[in-house]
């Protein structure tokens, strides 16, 4: 390999890391979704929400201001914490949530790594790792509230992981592939996943709400019980990162949801070999669908209070698990009889 291709290859990698689907995209997505969350809640609550920070665009820069403030605040590392775990865990949590984006395509010709037939598996593996670092965060803080938060996270993690995997597995059974692009192609040629298996879609939605800590499953960060839950002892950028992680996860999940259930880049198809119709517009379509899903999920904050831990765990092991098993059975039946 000559030196120039190597440099180009490095630049391309850097672009992936920094711009798309890397940190800049994440920043933009998180800023927009936090702003959207606060604005939607404010709309329901008969008020303006963030406004003065940038009056012309409705205060959309609010989260950016918060981020700036966090970035330059004093970093406090309490005496009795497990220092390395305390410092590294939020970063790793954020990193794994972000890396999962590599395997989630937002267009038919888009892939960061070499084309893979196992993108669904890779992304799921990375997504499932993140809560483990959340538990590390709670354990390292040496704070009783964080500790209880970590325990709650553990309980919920165990009780909602199986339904999550089963709901994806049932889609895998229907589409007969481990690749998102193939899955979308399957939907484009037949019906979107939400019609093929509504039970799996419902399970997935519930699991999304729970894993990203949206209401009514805002249990690990229940502020009237546990101050800030896991992140009680965190200040400055660490807290900023920790607060952003659920939103990154939310973005991941919403992309997966729109790819597996909402038909991906429908109405565009693979056949158009045009950079605009083949690459950019499908990407925009997927992201818009993901944003709609995210907006629906953050809207729940305005409607529901939070469940108790035991209620959430109980429903996880009973209704949601049952629902996911039914969704697998439905998929098997469909594959056997319909196709």
């Amino acid at each position: 390999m000559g030196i120039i291709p190597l440099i180009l290859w490095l630049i391309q990698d850097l672009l992936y890391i920094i711009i798309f689907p890397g940190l800049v995209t994440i920043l933009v997505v998180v800023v927009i979704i936090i702003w959207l969350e606060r604005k939607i809640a404010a709309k329901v609550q008969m008020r303006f929400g963030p406004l003065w920070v940038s009056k012309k665009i409705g205060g959309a820069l609010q989260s950016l201001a918060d981020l700036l403030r966090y970035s330059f605040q004093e970093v406090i590392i309490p005496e009795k914490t497990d220092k390395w775990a305390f410092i590294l865990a939020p970063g790793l949590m954020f990193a794994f949530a972000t890396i999962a984006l590599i395997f989630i395509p937002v267009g038919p010709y888009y892939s960061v790594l070499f084309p893979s037939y196992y993108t669904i598996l890779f992304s799921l593996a990375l997504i499932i790792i993140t809560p483990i670092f959340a538990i590390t965060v709670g354990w390292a803080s040496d704070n009783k509230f964080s500790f209880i938060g970590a325990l709650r996270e553990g309980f919920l993690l165990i009780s909602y992981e199986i339904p999550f995997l089963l709901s994806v597995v049932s889609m895998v059974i229907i589409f007969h592939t481990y690749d998102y692009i193939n899955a979308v192609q399957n939907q484009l040629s037949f019906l979107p996943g939400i019609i093929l298996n509504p039970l799996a879609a419902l399970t997935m939605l519930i699991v999304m709400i729970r894993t990203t800590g949206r209401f009514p499953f805002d249990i690990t960060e229940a502020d009237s019980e546990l101050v800030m839950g896991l992140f009680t002892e965190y200040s400055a950028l660490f807290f900023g990162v920790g607060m952003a992680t659920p939103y990154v996860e939310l973005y991941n999940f919403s992309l997966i949801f729109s790819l597996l259930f909402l038909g991906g880049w429908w109405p565009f198809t693979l056949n158009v070999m045009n950079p605009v119709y083949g690459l950019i517009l499908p990407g925009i379509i997927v992201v818009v669908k993901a944003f709609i899903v995210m907006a629906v999920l953050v809207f729940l904050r305005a409607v529901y209070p939070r469940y108790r831990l035991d209620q959430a765990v109980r429903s996880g092991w009973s209704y949601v698990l049952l629902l996911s098993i039914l969704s697998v059975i439905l998929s098997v039946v469909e594959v056997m009889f319909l196709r």
Partner: protein
Amino acid sequence: MSEKVYNIDDLQNINVEGEKYIILQIGPSHPGSGHMRLKVWLDGDIIVKVDPDIGFVHRTSEWLSERREWIKAVPIVERIMLPDTVHANLAYVLTVEKLLGIEPPPRAQYLRSLVAEINRITSHLYGIGIFGIFLGSSTVYMWAFGDREPFIDLMEMLTGARITTSYIIPGGVRWDLPNGFKERAETVLQYMERRLKDYEDIWVKNPVVQARTINVGTLKKEDAIRLGVVGPNLRASGVYYDTRKHHPYAAYSNLDFEVPTMKNGDSYDRLLIRVEEIKQSIKLIRQILKDIPEGKIIADQIYNQLNPVMKKNYEEKKRVMFPAFMIHMRPPAGEASAKVEAGRGEIFFYIKSTGDKYPYRFRWVTPSFRNLPYFTHVTVGHRLADLPTIYGSIDYFPPEADR
């Protein structure tokens, strides 16, 4: 996580020594504590014992009032019960009137009831809002605090201040009804009736709220009586007791209203009863505005103390200015007690006078202080997440309890 059932009286028998229990210090710097500290012993997720550590807002109102002229106690008692200012003011003035032997004229009595009922609605909305934020629903908090504002506007229109009104003075009230008050009040009441339906949709009938509150923090009727809790919480436990009915004051003996009671005494009932009482208060305000008699708003004894300028002012603007009598007031020796049903429950005043210009003994008990047994008795055996539910549902306001 064992589902142990604790008896309500096991509290004293539980030995909380040793390393088995997690001890949580909740508050005072905690989103779910208010101005108090709750020391909580946890067995897994189950609360074994709660020790409320109050007094963070103990502002020594009794001590201060014993060192001020009689009329100057009014602002002090108001500041202690900030969401319930009118009732605190009214209770104190009733006690002083008993000592002085003054009876206010009927119109003043009706005006007192009117402003007290407006205040009751704001107090209940305050409680519902805090309950909302404790369960995690910011919408209910915002709605309740937003809908509290029109009523505060009404109070401001009538009395000139947002919440610390000092409207009621011995012998009467300070202002008459302003022009256009009745129409404005009617608009606000209609608005509130509309909004109550929204509250029912999003909050009272919300499945998550019901799952969180039904059968949580149950206080049975016998226990409620034994522990001496007050106000809407008592009535939610099924005890028919309302100071407005049983110790009638102001115009309540002439007014027709119901005292709603519930059966179970759990957090959900304590929520429902506040909604019901808002409806009753709306009814009462309409009734008062319809029935209010014409006449003076100040007793003759006070009116005679006014100087000519003040009398002219009173005739023209219907405004009572403070005569010098107020500051030099020396009620005859003796003791008096009075009770008033505030938004959160019953206020009790006991004042001993020696005929001096200061009260000799100034004793008052606020509803929140009497609701303290909820923390020690009702929370036991519930989960940690139920603690904010119970706290929010009893509508506890720490500055009021600490006095």
